[in-house]
């Protein structure tokens, strides 16, 4: 190629590149209309309490000393959210801790059939403390599951609920590996990841999550951290609050009162 041909090519190259670049920039700007769903959530306004989700920030409080391990919450959740009925997929579950005087700790999940969960547990003089702990997705402020999802199928809404887009989930299971609390599972019917959604479809209608609704002892408290009159805010005022695995800096929004040090 000689100088003339080179310059001709150059003359064509820059404008062509410029046009392409400008077009790309324009389309890119149109597409980046916000990373998360903000105030302009399209469609589906719930009837009744329709207001801006950004005004709320939801969390849950659990009083361990009130839980009687009746598992009404587990049953209600499975009914409300169509969770697979096999005895190992749970959006929420109850753990029983038995701490003996010699320091031995025995933990079991009372909802997994065939693995303990007897209805009457006899008195054992060696037992120092024994209690139930409800567990669920913690809807972390700093969620590791959202961080690792390769396609952005799981995300946190402005009102603090971590949701899963089951139409986009590719089923790579990285989020299930990344969750430190074992809150996620792969739905065997859709082959996508699934977990507790704080019953978002109920909460946005002004109802309580199913598990909170049926708890007979009010061991679960659901509330809005941004509201001035919120059961959760009072809960946080009256109790010393713990979260699970604080050293992992996930900043969970499920706050436990009277949480024993043996609970993981």
């Amino acid at each position: 190629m000689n100088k003339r041909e080179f310059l001709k090519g150059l003359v064509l190259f820059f404008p062509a590149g410029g046009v392409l670049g400008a077009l790309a920039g324009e389309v890119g700007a149109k597409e980046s209309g916000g990373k998360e769903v903000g105030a302009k959530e399209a469609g589906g306004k719930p009837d009744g309490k329709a207001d801006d989700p950004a005004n709320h920030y939801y969390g849950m409080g659990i009083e361990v000393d009130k839980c009687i391990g009746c598992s009404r919450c587990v049953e209600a959740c499975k009914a409300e959210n169509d969770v697979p009925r096999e005895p190992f997929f749970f959006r929420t579950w109850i753990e029983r801790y038995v701490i003996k005087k010699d320091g031995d700790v025995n933990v079991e999940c009372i909802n997994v059939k065939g693995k303990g969960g007897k209805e009457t547990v006899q008195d054992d003089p060696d037992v120092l403390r024994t209690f139930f702990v409800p567990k669920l997705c913690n809807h972390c402020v700093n969620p590791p599951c959202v961080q690792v999802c390769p396609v952005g199928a799981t995300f946190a809404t402005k009102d603090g609920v971590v949701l899963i887009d089951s139409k986009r989930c590719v089923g790579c299971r990285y989020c299930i590996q990344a969750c430190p609390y074992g809150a996620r599972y792969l739905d065997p019917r859709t082959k996508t990841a699934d977990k507790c959604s704080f019953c978002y479809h109920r909460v946005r209608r002004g109802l309580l999550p199913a598990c909170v609704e049926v708890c007979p002892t009010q061991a679960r408290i659901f509330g809005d951290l941004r509201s001035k009159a919120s059961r959760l805010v009072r809960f946080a005022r009256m109790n010393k609050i713990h979260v699970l695995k604080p050293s992992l800096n996930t900043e969970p929004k499920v706050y436990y009162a009277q949480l024993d040090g043996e609970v993981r």
Partner: protein
Amino acid sequence: MTAEAQGLSELLEQITGFIYPNEIEIHWSILIVVYPYITGLVAGAFILASLVKVFNVKEVQPTYRLALLTALAFLLVAPFPLLLHLGRPERFYEILLTPNVTSAMAMFGFVYAWYLMGVLLLEVWFEYRRDLILLAARERSPMSWVYRALSLFSTDTSEAAVVFDRKAVRAITIIGIPSAFLLHGYVGFIFGSVKANPWWGSVLMPIVFLMSAIVSGIALVILLYMVLTAMRREAIDMGCLDTITSYLFYAVIVDFSLEALDFIHRLYQSEESVKILGKLITHKLFMSLFVLQILLGMFIPLGILVLAKSRKFNDDLRKLLYFTAVILIQLGIFSTRWNVVIGGQLFSKSFRGLMTYKMEVMGIEGLLTALVVLALPFVILAVLIRVLPTKRLDDQASTTGEPVVPAGAANPAALTRS
């Protein structure tokens, strides 16, 4: 109950201690063990190739093209285990269209694309361009058209062009070394960044992954070189073999040191997870870790290599020893991947229990699929070797070492280059 649920129910009996109920299912199966094994081989083979072009280790030259083609064959197969493993494989394109930039897995897609297109294919093209033109002239159609297309319809085989090719190869290899580190280091990072899992979440993970990848890649090229020369009934270049196995030896030493460091560090620091991890390796990973990975995969090959280097054995015995060592090393590195991937899922994040992995034989994530995926690169490599000669054309030396001059050679001066 579905068959899957039935299978999981059986696993309920095999739990020891306490696990979070959702943890019963082992999510990343043998396909995800095969995947880092394959990408490791890619990185390792490429590093071996870079020894020739960047560090000018002339003795290793006979394996240069073989290493490149091996890297390419394995890289082409690497996405398959991932695709097969997805719960919704038909949605795989989303990783490319809307990647989440905070996700290592998503970013890996682009690292992979860069390495395939920007490094490996480019280097193969520059290395083979001249030969492709010669082959296009020599072969009948349709193969001649294939060669013409592969060379991108290039025709210049002049001295200057070949010199340019060589410079380009060197430049690409220089970029390729950190790219290879990135390729497999990223896989290590995918595990190493998971803070929820103490078996995986460690700063050393990408480094250990990379070093064991280099070990396995070099060992594989040695294996393939020995098999190929035996199949072609050619004399093997013992100088080359001795040099590569030396590099293999150094790589195994470094790899072993890193893994020993990780172990000692964990034991000494004695964090909360050390108890359950101790139970994990003694109850669930005893065979695969102590016997396969460490004894058979590291100590014995190290011993064999030391033996072969220190004593003056004859060629045949050395070949036998090297062959045994590289087979054991492949076994060891595969076990390493197993211990990381499966091992990390066999203990509960509550640190109170252990689970079991039941590998299916049939089924899309079963043993058979894994074996097919492992065999596929060799099939591709065989095709590649047929199409792209492992020896530079016009340099197909007979055992006497004299160059062979075919009819229609473009440039006689090319004969003298190695």
